[in-house]
């Protein structure tokens, strides 16, 4: 082996570090910052009165039937790691694994603790996503929860259905992918409506001036 046989691959590797490492990734980051600043930052969602984002539009959050404090909100899908977005994982239980049936049965029991429109629970509410933080549920899964959320919050069913429509995204050109509802977006609307309600309640108690900036 002569010297060139080793020098050429080493130099090519060095050049590659520069071109396909630094230049490729760096220029994409620059394009992202200039043209798609929202994507480049991780699609953060901001709400009034909070400096830090309340979440990312792309990343799901935990709203679960087993947790009483989430009962006013639309539930998201089961997760193997409680929506920890620093990792991603799935239980990977196959169809013949008894643990899978156990988990589904437990979820059905949790769901049955509250109001249900019928006995047929959409699969989306009891199946884990692959990422463990799917931001979406199907429209069927959202509609199934309208009765409960309406009873628990006092928001009218019609208003909730409008919110679902607003948080729904269509398949690409209607021919690829599935219709889906962004759960965080939907629940932020629910929370706004709850805040409004509280303000109205407080107003009737003649305390309006004290909670003008409504921090609940």
């Amino acid at each position, binding site marked *: 082996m002569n010297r060139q046989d080793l020098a050429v691959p080493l130099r090519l590797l060095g050049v590659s570090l520069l*071109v396909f490492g630094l230049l490729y990734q760096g220029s994409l980051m620059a394009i992202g910052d200039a043209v798609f600043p929202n994507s480049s930052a991780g699609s953060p969602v901001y709400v009034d009165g909070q400096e830090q984002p309340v979440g990312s539009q792309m990343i799901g959050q935990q709203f679960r039937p087993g947790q009483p404090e989430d009962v006013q909100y639309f539930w998201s899908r089961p997760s193997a790691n409680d929506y920890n977005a620093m990792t991603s994982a799935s239980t990977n239980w196959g169809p013949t694994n008894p643990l899978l049936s156990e988990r589904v049965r437990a979820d059905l029991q949790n769901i049955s603790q509250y109001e249900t429109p019928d006995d047929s629970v959409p699969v989306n509410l009891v199946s884990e996503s692959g990422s463990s933080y799917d931001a979406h549920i199907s429209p069927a899964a959202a509609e199934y929860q309208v009765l409960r959320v309406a009873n628990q919050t006092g928001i009218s069913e019609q208003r909730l259905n409008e919110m679902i429509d607003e948080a729904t995204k269509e398949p690409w050109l209607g021919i690829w992918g599935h219709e889906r509802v962004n759960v965080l977006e939907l629940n932020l609307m629910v929370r706004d409506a709850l805040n409004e309600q509280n303000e109205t309640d407080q107003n009737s108690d003649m305390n309006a001036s004290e909670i003008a900036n409504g921090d609940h």
Partner: protein
Amino acid sequence: MASPPPIVEYAVFFTILAVLVFVAGEYLAWVYREQANSDHRPPGYLSWFERLDEIFTPIENGLYRLSGINPRREMTWKGYLKAVLVFNVCIWVLLFVVLMFQDALPMNFVGVGGESWDLAFHTASSFTSNTNQQHYSGETLSVFTHTFGIGIAMFLTPATGLALMPAFARAFTNKEDPRLGNFYENVVRGLVRFLLPISLLIAIILMAEGSVQTILGGQLTANTFTMGIQNIRIGPHAGIEAIKMFGTNGGGINAANAATAFENPTPLSNLVLTLAMPIGTFSAIYAWGAWVGNRSHGVAIVAAFFVIYMALTGVAVVGETGTNAGMVVTGNGLHVDQTVGNMEGKETRFGPTASAIWGLSTTGTTNGGVNSMHNSWTALGAFSLLFAFATNNISNGVGTGLLNILMFVILTAFIGALMIGRRPQYLGKKLEWQEMRYVFVVILVLPILVLIPQAAAVVYQGAIDSMNNPGFRGFSEVLYEFFSASANNGSGFEGLGDGTLFFNLVNGVQVLLARYVPITAQLAIAGYLANKKVSPESKGSLDTDTPAFVGLLIGVIIIVSALVFLPALVFGPIGELLSGGI
């Protein structure tokens, strides 16, 4: 507007794919026309390719000068092989060092540790061989490792594959001339003209759809209203994802791979990435016909592999739009409505059909990226995945895929000629025992590498303990893992506890043998054939562009390759299917 029916998504996908394979195939043929010693010309309406020389030639010349490459220095098959191996050893060493010492290197924004020696051995071998099998969670690598280790290998290993194609084409275009071209020139051309521009395009589409892209941070912190602080991992997702999918790589920044939204944010990004996998491999098959001066032969081979790909995808769609047997349960009077299909381990935005098409695109090539968890697939779906492996991943990898499928084509030409009583030849070169010996070596690599370790694993308690599911499914997990390593695919029936010394060493050796034994044999074949003279086509020669040849080719692949694995498949998905776990 509701979600589209499965048949619409199926038809849309394969229609777009067929068009893109043609365009990308003509383009790839143009990229390597001189290096393949071909008199190829693109059709008139694609002659604008020629104007791209003005952009690419100066970039290539710059890279040649910086790297000290002399494109006129031609290599014989032995020199070519030596260059491939030395270059790949350099990539391996870079990866091994970066992985072991990533905790001490900069840009470690979330404080990950270095990998252990056996895990680093497996990871470096896996990424050098274009396999991208991961025995770690993607999130345990630093941004530095992704940008300057993994990301570099993702460009250079498919480029290594691409560079083998024109050398192999010379086996048939050369007339008694042993020179196969310059390996490094071919690597640079593949990078500059094929991998880089298309990856940039895909990455920009991904960012437009919502993928994150940063090399200056590792985490985004959200202050949520029901679950407290939620930390979210960010990094160079768009850039890595693009080359990961287009270069048949597959190892994601996130453990859940392209199921996560930052790698694959929307249905449109999912379509682009699903197409990116087979375009890289099928375009090379099309280009083969153009190089050897017989486009209809290229179309015939593409057609044969399309038939297998579409048939298995159809099986997967039927399986995944069916019900998950484990969810047919009741609780307090409620039951699960599974009319949409098996959604366990799948993302809402993709749904079962697009996930099934992705699944067969990732196992119909050696990509290995996933957008749903394969271990949660139905028995029928799992069968289609494992059967795709048994055909050596249908169209295999970028570059190496063409060489691997040509082994089947040469074997078919050999058998076909004997069936009609002619002297075996392919594209005017006589096939003799020297070449056929190596063809069989390549074809036997997969069964030997998969079945012998599989036999060992089912009686080794350490491997059994790693299984995540009981019964047939546990057997399928290990079978999938060995297939995935030995076909250089890299995907997993995730859940298998594969980060053990046993799996790290066995899989690490599998990925290396699966990559470099075939390459050595194929370059030897190219060397022998290039030295032979071209015998003129006569009336009695076997036609290689007829439907009869397509049928024979499909038959050879199924009988010679896939049926070797039938007993193993019976213990895995077929057993599960027959026992009622549909």
